[in-house]
């Protein structure tokens, strides 16, 4: 028996897919451990808007923190009120395990939350299991060079989960949920911070952790023409566009598309690496992908050591033909 609590992060008005993956994993654990319960913490100026989706993903209990400080246009950076809100939920819900999506917003506060609720934290895990009074997890470490098998004891144990580690599954029937409103008061003055400006990434981009396919560009993509080729392939696949540091330094892709040790971790069904050399720090962010297709003109590029299928060739020649061939194959329907 375990009391599981997840945190549903909201971005651009929607619960992130990674949060739903965390919730789905908790439901799976609850099914295996009889008598377990799955609750969700939600922190928003309007949590109500997300209840239906949480029910579809099988939440049994929702701990809602409602405050305008969590509205999108606010002068208070989210980290301090979010830490306070989650600590409040944990106090009320008394969970054995808290599972959070390993996104930048969570990475920024996980340490503070662990101190505040006096809990051990297992950050950025690629898998976890709940035991009696403990959590066992796997964490890629050393720039994803090794897998650490870790164990933490206590209640609660805080866990943050990497994107794509588990599938997000809806329930056949929406669950009936108990809603708990968690009291919350936050004094903006104590935060010591005011948000001056938010520099938005270009709108209309597909979130990297939301899709089954990622097309990632490297320094080999050197101009607008190359960028167009990447975007055409991505559009055909409904894929998100990612980038290596090389491509971002070239100024062609926004910093939020960085994949790797510094950037985001993705584990899509298919990862297409185009003009990327395959540096350790990049591979750290994509090595969990199920199928990897690498296109590189250097047949000895390290990226091929991390690929399922390799295409040695100039991306400016390969991509147009590849996208066309894929279009053909898909439309002939075999």
């Amino acid at each position, binding site marked *: 028996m375990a009391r599981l609590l997840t945190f549903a992060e909201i971005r651009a008005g929607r619960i992130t897919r990674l949060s739903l993956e965390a919730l789905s994993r908790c439901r799976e654990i609850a099914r295996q451990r009889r008598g377990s319960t799955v609750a969700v913490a939600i922190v928003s100026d309007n949590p109500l808007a997300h209840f239906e989706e949480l029910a579809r993903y099988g939440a049994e209990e929702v701990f809602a923190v409602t405050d305008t400080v969590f509205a999108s246009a606010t002068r208070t950076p989210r980290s301090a009120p979010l830490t306070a809100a989650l600590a409040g939920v944990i106090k009320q819900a008394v969970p054995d395990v808290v599972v959070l999506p390993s996104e930048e917003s969570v990475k920024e506060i996980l340490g503070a939350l662990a101190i505040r609720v006096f809990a051990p934290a297992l950050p*950025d895990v690629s898998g976890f299991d709940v035991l009696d009074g403990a959590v066992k997890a796997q964490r890629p470490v*050393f720039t994803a060079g090794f897998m650490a098998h870790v164990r933490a004891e206590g209640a609660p144990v805080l866990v943050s989960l990497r994107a794509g580690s588990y599938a997000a599954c809806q329930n056949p029937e929406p669950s009936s949920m108990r809603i708990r409103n968690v009291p919350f008061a936050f004094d903006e003055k104590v935060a010591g911070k005011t948000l001056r400006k938010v520099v938005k990434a270009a709108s209309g981009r597909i979130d990297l952790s939301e899709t089954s396919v990622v097309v990632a560009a490297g320094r080999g993509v050197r101009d607008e023409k190359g960028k167009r080729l990447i975007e055409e392939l991505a559009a055909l696949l409904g894929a998100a566009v990612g980038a290596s540091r090389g491509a971002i330094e070239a100024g062609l892709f926004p*910093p*939020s598309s960085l994949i790797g040790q510094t950037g985001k971790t993705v584990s899509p069904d298919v990862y297409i690496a185009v003009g990327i050399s395959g540096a350790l720090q990049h591979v750290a962010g994509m090595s969990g992908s199920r199928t990897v297709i690498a296109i590189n003109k250097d047949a000895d590029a390290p990226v091929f050591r991390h690929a399922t*299928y390799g295409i040695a060739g100039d991306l400016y020649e390969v991509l147009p033909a590849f996208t066309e061939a894929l279009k053909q194959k898909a439309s002939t329907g075999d």
Partner: protein
Amino acid sequence: MVGLCQGLHEQVLYEHEAIRVVHGFIRQKIADMKLIVCVKQVPDVASPLRLQEGCIDTSAGRMVLNAYDASATEGAIAFTERYGGEVHAVLVGPPEGRETLRKVLAMGVASAVHIQVKDRAACPEAVPNALPEAQACAKILADHFNKETFDVIACGKQAQDTDAGLTPAMLAELLGLPFIGNAIALERDGNGRSGNHLLVTRQGDADQEITRIETPCVVSCSNNMCDPRIPNIKGIMGARNKPIDVKIVSRPAGLPGVHVQRYEAMPGRPRVRMLEEGWDKAIEALVPFVKGGPPAI
């Protein structure tokens, strides 16, 4: 913008630039800041590390300054070059960590404190088992900083060995100070009445946030903040005369426990299949995604 890394900032920084002009203007009036960087020595992830009975054998490799801490150090030094002030360093780790402190001293840090932990674990090869875990490390640092004066504590956003990234926020929480994580730019905010604020640009999940934060504060730095300088001969020679203060502390007790049970190799991939023109296998793998296509977002 201090130590801006090409391309890694969203394009719309013109308004931000205007703030910079103000700094120059009032620079004389505001007191210099004292920045302290927390640095860690880690095995070079590019060096040959081998698994031995569930431990990572680092003896064949070399130990280096954690790359994110190198960026924090560079960011702090560049900050003081721009606005005045001084940078000091703190390292928690075994006696061998001294080499890493020499490195940051050679980069331009003025002095260093080397905190060594008594009774470290028996098996030094079992890195990072031999080092205090994040909460212990944060506690050791907090005890140290409680007796220090400073304006800014700058840490790397994570260590390349544990890849955990917990210590900076833990430290801020223990000290009761405001914190910003994953910073990509540090500037001084010279807003007349109170010149003791920073402007920190942080890379979030989608956007970049520019936040005004009061000092003293803690920030954790991304390597996208700046490329660390390579110390020159003058810096290396000068570092020899800079003070390193050694402190011996006990391992904090009674903290929530996280244990590494063992390390394993990462699940490998079968050897790559190089495809010839036509690329049938790759096309086949992708066709299902063209047809159904995930829901548009």
